[in-house]
């Protein structure tokens, strides 16, 4: 353990609860042609899984995305759709 004495001291990492992407039933899929870079999806993701690039384009972190669907629900242009996992798209 840390700091010379055994007590619960932890450090921040990605995936503290594991690879939470496996929780998904549905995955958000972006159609960038419809994206107007409003960044509503970016600010609405409880898990910071929508990554915002320098030019305000977004990408989705599928390793950790839990598939809650808020991003798709909030997107004003329906650029994100929730697609069933495991159907081999």
């Amino acid at each position: 353990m840390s700091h010379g004495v055994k007590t619960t001291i932890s450090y921040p990492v990605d995936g503290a609860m594991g690879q939470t992407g496996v929780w998904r039933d549905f995955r958000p899929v972006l159609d960038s042609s419809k994206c107007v870079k409003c960044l509503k999806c970016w600010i609405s993701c409880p898990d910071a899984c929508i990554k915002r690039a320098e030019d305000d384009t977004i990408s989705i972190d599928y390793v950790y995305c839990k598939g809650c669907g808020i991003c798709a629900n909030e997107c004003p242009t329906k650029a994100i759709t929730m697609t069933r996992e495991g159907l081999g798209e």
Partner: protein
Amino acid sequence: MIIIDTGDRIAAKAAQMARPEFIAAYPITPQTVIVEKTAEYAETGELDAEYVRVESEHSAMTAVIGAAITGIRTFTATSSHGLALMHEMLHWAALSRLPIVMVNVNRTLGPGWNIWADQTDALAQRDTGWVQFYCASCQEIFDVIVQSYRLAEMEDVQLPIMVNYDAFVLSHTSMPVEIPEQAEIDKFLPPYRALWQIDPDDPITYANMVPQAYYGGIRKDMQDAHERVKDLVPRIANDWKQRFGTDHGGLIEQIQCDDADYILVTMGAFGAEAKVAVEQLRDEGVKAGLARIRVFRPFPAEVFRELAKGRTLVVVDRGVSIGAGGGIYTELKSALYGHSIAPVHGFIAGLGGKDVTYGEMSEMVKRVAAGNAAEVEWWGLDGQGGA
């Protein structure tokens, strides 16, 4: 410098001289004087510390924990129901390995409301992982509080320490106490250096969930630290004696044990009383001795295994675990089992602050010596026994 003052005021003085940087405490009889005196010290600047007048004992221990994790020395005090109220956070402090020092004025629990001395309050906390000292004089109160910081803050220890003494018998009784110079105390007790701390520069998470596999190791580490305390207490006491001249013993204080047939085993103010009982018994030709427990946690098992050889032990308990027995009695027998066949007799006395005199303690030993004592006796109920 010698001052004459009550246990509580001496405790406050010791706390002030140990230079804690944070105090949070809630008043409860008979600890109130400590809270009042330390508040006064903080306001006059005699104590350079943050002082938070919390709204309960549970919050007192929690606030102390909050301050301690930022890496500063802390102090608090309580008694009885207040100690019971902070029980959850006693576990928290010990599992967090924080070197907090707390005075507990031993007062029993109700109902009925009883503000007087017995040790049930601290006994009920013996599983929490705190080191526990029991004092028998105001001098010892002063010395142990300062020594406790040195002990608690050692890298090999990192445990919170409870310094106990009897309600009113010590808390409100004046005795002469030799107070060292602040500069000398500072040499004995260097500034606290935390092993880890909460600091915005270091994004650690403290006290999050812990999976099953890790938990046992945390507990074992606490136990290992307690084992080290057994060696460190006498060493620190010796260092203090070299510097300041006062001495109260190590894990236990032994009085006339070398050639004793009967050894009184007790702790707290009863220990002071028992000293006189030993003299009285010796005058009457009984080879009595006293083993006054100073450190109850960690329990000084090894010391007693040695001491028990060829003796009869007469335990006088001022606290009881209902359904099992006297606190010292049960732990002592457990420590001796498999190591010693020495007879052990238990007396449960003085609960709820009933006075027990040295005369009565002599009676107890004589009852044992005459073969008239049961294995365990409750003393002084319903008007039995001496006044």
